[in-house]
């Protein structure tokens, strides 16, 4: 997405605030995978992985990797006390059964109705669907982390997505380098604006109407 490391980490830090003690959370690849770095020690979370782990911990130290203990992306992880292993059909049974409190995913486009497109760009190679559809459709809360605009400066938050959908009406919260927006029945609510942007910057960079209802204030 061409965002610097600092901005990516900033988005991840903001997303971490959505995670409460005791939650079961699945993190997608990319920026979402950074979120676990920003949890405070009082927040005990069970991280879920599609390949069959509940209770992932931090990445191992270099040299301490275990070839038989990896996350869904194939990268080495550790486990925390209380963790369990199971097969992938069980891992997805948990997802479809509605047991995930939050999934945090990357996005290519999000519509004002909460439609998510994040799996294929026409004209580019199709990488496949993976577990994204199930996570987007079935997690209790879906948070999308992405850059606010594409590399041509065009909005990625739109009235209607132009790319093939991953799932309809699934996104609850969008966190970008510019803003935090909630998806509601009546459209998008702008809740926070990131430094150094202004409300006007955000509105200009968003392809759908925003209702402005910032923390502690109410504009309309």
């Amino acid at each position, binding site marked *: 997405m061409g965002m610097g490391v600092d901005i990516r980490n900033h988005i991840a830090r903001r997303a971490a605030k959505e995670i409460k003690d005791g939650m079961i959370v699945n993190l997608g690849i990319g920026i979402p995978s950074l979120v676990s770095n920003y949890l405070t020690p009082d927040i005990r979370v069970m991280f879920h*992985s*599609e*390949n*069959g*782990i509940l209770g992932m911990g931090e990445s191992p130290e270099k040299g301490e*990797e*275990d*070839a*038989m*203990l*990896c*996350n*869904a*992306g*194939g*990268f*080495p*992880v550790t*486990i925390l006390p209380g963790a369990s*292993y*199971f*097969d*992938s*059909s069980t*891992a*997805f*049974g948990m*997802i*479809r059964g509605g047991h995930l409190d939050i999934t945090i995913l990357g996005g290519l486009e999000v519509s004002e109705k909460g439609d998510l497109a994040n799996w294929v760009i026409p004209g580019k*190679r*199709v*990488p*496949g*669907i*993976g*577990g994204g*559809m*199930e996570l987007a*459709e079935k997690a209790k809360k879906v948070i999308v982390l992405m850059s606010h605009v594409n590399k041509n400066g065009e909005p990625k938050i739109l009235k209607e997505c132009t790319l*093939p*959908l*991953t*799932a*309809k009406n699934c996104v609850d919260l969008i966190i970008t380098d510019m803003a935090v927006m909630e998806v509601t029945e009546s459209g998008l609510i702008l809740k926070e604006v990131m430094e150094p942007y202004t409300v006007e910057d955000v509105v200009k960079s968003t392809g759908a109407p925003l209702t402005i209802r910032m923390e502690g204030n109410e504009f309309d």
Partner: protein
Amino acid sequence: MTKVASLEKALSFITDECVLMYGGFGGVGNPPTIINGILEKGVKDLILIGNDAGFPEIGIGKIVSRERAKKLITTHIGSNPIAGKLMVEGKLEVEFCPQGILAERIRAGGAGLGGILSDIGIGSVIEKGKQKVLVGGREFLIETPLQADVAIVHAKKADTYGNLIYDKSARNTNPIVATAGKITIAEAEEIVEVGELDPESIITPGIYVDFIVQSKGVDWKWAWE
């Protein structure tokens, strides 16, 4: 009554154009010794069924990269760019399935079900070519079971009856894949006598396993290296 077999014997069941299902997820839990054996034997035109295409030089990815498969039923191939290239060039037919639904289709194949009803991907490209049914006023896709001529899995330990236990997250799709082969071949890091595995700890009962091959161990560099 032992099911321990030579690699050569096990490979005799894996022939050109056969439907080969493999355990593993992102390379982890693919059976390396059997995969290398398939490459050395020169088997071609395989129809592969499994979670992903591995990495170009890791796990099942090697079979795809070396153009030994004509078709792949899977969930994503993003980690193996050669698979994507072959797909675009028309050299590899790829059928994509949502990840958990692929797992359920494999499980259904092993458990003798006629299929499952799923609401994953309703209204998307996933619907393409699939029957739909209305049950209790809700629409579902009929996802059909998947079976294979030969299923290959990787285990930490096997006893000579074919009872298997797995190693941490390398378990992943292996237990379901083990149930769905007309012939199932398990590659085990360690083979022990019957009675040495705790009956409570066995993940795959030996009823599903036809042959056990001694693993030569993981021989590749991992994705993160």
